[in-house]
């Protein structure tokens, strides 16, 4: 598993603007060694800028970048011990796989024998032995991606930066490569800094996800934390599907917080931030956490609803429901409860609700 020791990289108070647009706003972040960190967000949120600042391709307006205890803010990319896998892989078209991988090693001052030995290691590690003498144009998308990875790993960087490297692959290959990439990261035991706009990709691979929006960090946590305890409306909507319930805070009753949603009292875990009674709150409930039944369930929270539509999704049914005219979606395993217009009960536990202050 990942060990969390001293940070490999520290971003301290970094701000970056291009003309009038502010790409990054007072960003602070630490990355531990051996960690798979994903930067997730819509395009233009500043995630790629962060990556490029770490790589040395952009200079921050203010703030510092510390790599392994050394301030590298002013160093150009060729003098930083981090390597990058580019979105288009940027393999050198006039060089074979072998020459591509050797590029960084030659500039490190290694001998021909040492370079060949290292290439063999990487070829065995990433199963590239058969493609070493091919040019990039003779390789498939997946093979190119592995060559780019081998080239970036060859000089033994302290951290690897990956800029949406799976974007060019087709959907089927992508899932397979996601798992492979996670395995590779685990066995190199290096910090991977991965940028994507694909939330599913982020959830699959990451130890930690940093969600960004408009140059700021929205939330920073494990995939589970982000999924079940989104810190903001943006995070809740961006990651997975969710039902956002507009409710009013009532108060604390015993060990539970009670909110009022369309006249239904809902009990949930008290959030860190204290709400005043009567404050407007948003509650996020994931559709798959909602149990649909014909009779009133025994769960803490139960609400009566009417089925609007039912859509067959293969493994289960997606139900569109209406609670007093407000739309809610949920999943059901069997079509039994899925008659249109039928009245059903929805139930969920208190831990399935997370409260978001507006």
């Amino acid at each position, binding site marked *: 598993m990942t060990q969390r020791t001293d940070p490999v990289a520290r971003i301290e108070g970094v701000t970056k603007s291009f003309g009038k647009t502010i790409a990054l706003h007072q960003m602070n972040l630490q990355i531990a060694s051996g960690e798979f960190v994903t930067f997730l967000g819509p395009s233009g949120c500043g995630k790629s800028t962060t990556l490029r600042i770490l790589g040395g391709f952009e200079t921050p307006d203010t703030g510092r970048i510390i790599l392994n205890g050394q301030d590298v803010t002013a160093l150009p990319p060729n003098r930083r011990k981090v390597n990058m896998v*580019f979105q*288009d892989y940027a393999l*050198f078209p006039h060089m074979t796989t072998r020459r591509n991988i050797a590029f*960084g090693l030659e500039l490190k001052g290694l001998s021909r024998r040492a370079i060949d030995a290292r290439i063999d290691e990487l070829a065995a590690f990433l199963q590239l032995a058969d493609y070493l003498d091919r*040019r990039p144009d003779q390789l498939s998308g997946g093979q190119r991606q592995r060559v780019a990875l081998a080239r970036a790993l060859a000089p033994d960087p302290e951290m690897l930066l990956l800029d949406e490297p799976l974007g060019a692959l087709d959907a089927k290959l992508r899932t397979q490569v996601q798992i492979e990439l996670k395995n590779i990261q685990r066995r190199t035991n290096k910090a991977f800094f991965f940028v994507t706009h694909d939330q599913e990709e982020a959830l699959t691979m990451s130890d930690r996800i940093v969600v960004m929006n408009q140059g700021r960090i929205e939330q920073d946590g494990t995939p589970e934390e982000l999924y079940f305890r989104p810190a903001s409306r943006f995070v809740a909507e961006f990651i997975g599907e969710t039902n956002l319930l507009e409710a009013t805070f009532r108060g604390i009753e015993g060990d539970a917080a009670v909110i009022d949603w369309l006249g239904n009292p809902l009990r949930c875990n008290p959030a860190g931030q204290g709400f005043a009674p009567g404050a407007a709150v948003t509650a996020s409930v994931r559709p798959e956490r909602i149990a649909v039944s014909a009779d009133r369930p025994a769960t803490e929270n139960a609400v009566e609803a009417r089925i609007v539509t039912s859509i067959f999704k293969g493994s289960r049914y997606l139900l569109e429901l209406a609670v007093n005219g407000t739309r809610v979606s949920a999943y059901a395993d069997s079509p039994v409860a899925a008659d249109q217009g039928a009245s059903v009960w929805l139930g969920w536990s208190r831990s399935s609700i997370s409260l978001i202050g507006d």
Partner: protein
Amino acid sequence: MTRHTRILMSCIYWAFALYLLLPLALMMLMGFKDARFIGFPITSWTLDWYIGVFADRQVMFTFGYSTLIAILSTAIALVVGTWIAVTLTGRAFFGRAVILGLTLLPAVIPGVISAIAFRIYARVLGIEPGMWAIIWSHAVHNVPFVVLVVMARLSTLPRSQAEAARDLGADPLVVFFRITMPYLTPAMIGAGVFCMLLSFDDFVRSYFLGGYDPTLPVLIFAKLRSGMSPEVNAISTVVLVLTAVLGIWAERSMRRIKKQANR
């Protein structure tokens, strides 16, 4: 378009091609005429004029001289032009348009005027008319073509290529020689051959800036003024064949390399 206009246009094309090619073909033919004066009809044939070209030491020397000038001026134009193209591509800075405009200006300055301007300037700087003066004027004239061709090619090089090389430890100089240059090779071959042809064929600059040794076009010009003879035809034909072969070779190799690099 109607069928008639299409036929008409194809006729115009072929008439034009004929207009371009026929005089050259006749000129080549005339080199085989076994008589001293030029004119039709040709009654008897000989190879003597062509053999004479290769036996004539002055012609052969001049040929070498012109070639040397072409090679050296092209080398200078390639270095300068590539440098300027690299400087101007992918950067926005104050005065960029001015520099680009001034760089391209020599391509459109009327030939005589640029030749005369160089003649005066060389005198002011104390450069004797001769090889180096010619080389310099040819280089200045050819830089715009190199800049245009190289800039066009450079604009298709993804930014990530240089960034990837930087990332792997290359400084900007290594990036240029290991990434940018190989990518530019087809463009540089094409521009280089074009420059060589321009230099080799140039008359007006070589004429005004030349010393005692004439370049090949100046030699042909001098021979023409003293009268047409099949000897001139033979020299011209040799020049024509060489330039055509060089041009076609460059066109083909440029395409091949480009295809390879873009695959």
